[in-house]
């Protein structure tokens, strides 16, 4: 696969797309962890939701 004289442009654009998608995924994953940790913390301190179920009880 020869990319011709403009290889750098092609590679850069693919790399950029990969990078932005990776950042999105990482952001969402980290955010998920953080919210769950906070929920556990709050539950440990004895706060419960009105329904009585555990708020952190999600897969």
């Amino acid at each position, binding site marked *: 696969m020869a990319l011709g004289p403009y290889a750098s442009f092609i590679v850069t654009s693919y790399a950029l797309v990969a990078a932005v998608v990776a950042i999105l995924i990482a952001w969402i994953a980290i955010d998920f962890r953080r919210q769950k940790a906070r*929920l556990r913390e709050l539950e440990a301190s004895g706060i419960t939701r009105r329904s009585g179920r555990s708020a952190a009880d999600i897969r």
Partner: protein
Amino acid sequence: MTLIDLANPTKFLSLTGRILPWLAGATAILLMIGFYQAAMAPDDYQQGATVKIMFIHVPNAWLSMFVWGVMSLAALGTLVWRHPLADVAAKAAAPIGAAFTFLALVTGSLWGRPMWGTYWQWDARLTSVLILFLMYLGLIALWRAVDDPSRAARAAAILTLVGALNLPIIKFSVDWWNTLHQPASVLRMGGSTLDRAFLIPLLVMAVGFSLLFVTLHLAAMRNEILRRRVRSLQIMQASQQAA
């Protein structure tokens, strides 16, 4: 499973928890196939290898507009049916849409440099995508500006709808504006007469990116639901301690 079930955030969490891994897997496979096909696609006789940028540029460009459509639907859900998941869907979609729009702009610029000799042209299509990007950023700024999520949701919903009404007007006016000044110099590829060798990888990529959006959007919605739970628990904590 009915729509009513989906309306319940707890049900939503457990359901999406089950299907997300499958979705993510499908997305990864499709994108890999697409990438392989794109790598194998022949060079264009006019554009050479740079045509490969098309396979990521066009899906991102399509999604940038599609996501605003999704947010407009969610906005209707917020204003008309006062549906709590609609707020969540709208808020979660904005940053993802902005990211796709950003990618469409950047890959387009990177394509434009070899094709037109400049990164940026004030061409009608490019300019209207840029305005779309600015509107995404404005919407994100709006979400950040209010800490009470339901207030923010209604304000954002109104802006999203007004934006959706305006986008066609903007598109139309930008077309007019550009053709007014430099009629024949709009450089663009042949358009409709796309060879099968290009069309199939492009479609695979497009479906792959759409699945990517669905996956990311569902995951972001889950996070948003959790964030709201955290918030209400924190507030309850404040008031429980008071009592």
